[in-house]
């Protein structure tokens, strides 16, 4: 089996085309949202909070917002595409052809990664004007952005397969993805939290994605980027295994 088969490429292209055709909703809107976060939180907290020595709060916030946008949009892409296709019934166009489970998963996840990175790049391009940013270790920025988007894209596939209606998907997004992202240190360093919540944060895989990503900018982070990479990679492997298993079994797809 080839991962660059025509079938995979076509499904990947279709997923890209799908979000590109509604770019106002899928790209422009999340960039605007992130900009509003920066303007409001940055304005209120600038000068009052210094998370890392010598790093302004706005500068600290930018990578967090970029990564939050990457993660949320990667999740939204695969999950919304799958649930829409399931509910409207056009998922049959994917289920009838000879596409393998791997091709389906990789196509959905790759398109999610692209959308996440496009939105992330857009958020960065806008918000970077408001802060002086450094790029201490750019490779970590790329590694965590891609890996984080892939994880959320995979989680989106799982949620899209599991959910039977939009309501269930919204619950997944609002009660799991959103809290996990917000509580992962987008707006703060976990060192500013009480001991108990610091400990709890270490069980949140999103924390490692954002912390590792931020390390790429400032060269400093709450924990070592290598530790974050190891944890995030294991998390990705587990989610990918679950997603493949669901696709292979045809869970809620093939009855």
């Amino acid at each position, binding site marked *: 089996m080839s991962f660059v088969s025509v079938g995979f490429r076509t499904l990947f292209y279709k997923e890209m085309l799908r979000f590109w055709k509604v770019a106002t909703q899928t790209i422009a809107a999340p960039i605007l949202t992130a900009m509003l976060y920066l303007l409001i939180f940055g304005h209120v907290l600038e000068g009052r909070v210094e998370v890392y020595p010598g790093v302004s709060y706005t500068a600290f916030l930018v990578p967090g917002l970029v990564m939050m946008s990457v993660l949320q949009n990667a999740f939204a892409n695969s999950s919304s595409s799958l649930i829409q296709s399931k509910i409207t019934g056009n998922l049959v166009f994917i289920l009838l052809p*000879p596409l393998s489970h791997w091709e389906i998963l990789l196509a959905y996840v790759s398109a999610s990664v692209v959308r996440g990175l496009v939105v992330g790049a857009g958020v960065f391009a806008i918000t970077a004007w408001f802060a002086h940013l450094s790029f201490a270790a750019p490779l970590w920025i790329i590694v965590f952005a891609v890996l984080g988007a892939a994880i959320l894209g995979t989680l989106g596939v799982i949620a899209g397969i599991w959910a039977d209606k939009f309501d269930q998907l919204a619950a997944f997004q609002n009660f799991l993805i959103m809290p996990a992202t917000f509580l992962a240190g987008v707006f703060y360093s976990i060192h500013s939290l009480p001991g108990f919540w610091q400990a709890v944060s270490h069980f949140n895989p999103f924390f490692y994605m954002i912390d590792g990503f931020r390390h790429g900018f400032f060269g400093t982070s709450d924990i070592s980027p290598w530790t974050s990479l190891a944890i995030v990679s294991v998390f990705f492997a587990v989610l990918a295994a679950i997603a493949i298993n669901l696709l292979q079994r045809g869970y809620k797809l*093939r009855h």
Partner: protein
Amino acid sequence: MTAIQINSVEKSYKGFKALKGVSLNIEQGEFFGLLGPNGAGKTTLISTIAGLIRPDVGSVKIHGHDVVTDFRNARKNLGVVPQELVFDPFFTVRETLRLQSGYFGIKNNDAWIDEVMHNLDLTNKADVNMRALSGGMKRRVLVAQALVHKPPVIVLDEPTAGVDVELRQTLWKFISRLNREGHTVVLTTHYLEEAEAMCQRVAMLKLGEVVALDSMQGLLRRVSGSQLIVHLKEGTLPEGLRPLVSHDENENGKGNRYSLRINAPGEVEAILARLRESGAVVDEMQLQQADLEDIFLQIMGDAKAGKGAL
């Protein structure tokens, strides 16, 4: 070579047995009809063939490839027109067909896509978004999607449900051509006259079981004779002719009108003589050959009465 091999397929949903050990072989190049009332299991069987439903017991092979264990090769050989009118609202007709080609591993397929669109009268809709199409046009696109990879086996699940005469004619012309060129066609339809006109062989399903499997000629031979429909202007039907009545149309409020079962055309004169003797005057008369609908009703009736599979 056997195009579709269905071996003892069983499928249950929460205790309800939708398929009860269905076995069928459909040969390459056949135009095969799968008939039955609603809930007979036709769509479940087609979904099993398409790999959308996994059987609890039994197996299905397309050109020798198992639809579960060798799904890639099985699906390459199969094109399915689903019963539901589904579409992807993000794309135009051409984009939809190009994407579907790609899913089957075919790129640069525009020549065939153009031909399919031409044959289904879709050419002037090629760049129209799917949302803007009428129901009939969407149905044509579904047919085109099933054909983009030139599958040797084509399955059409009620392709003409709720569509106009023009599409039916266009569709059957194109499907007949593909069948003549060697494609195997499996059709489910509620329009029995379509099945009678198109299919060489028919399986009838009832409550998840095959209750009849025969060639169209074989099935038509099963109901011997024809119907003589008489409308009497005066008098009533003599008692001696009462046993021949198959439909007492007076029950439907159609007046003095009767359908009489006859076994040979020569019996018409004898019936008319009996009517004259009784003083009845025939106002209108019609001789009707038995058709698939009669057979369908008879077989479904027999199955309901527990007379067993044919």
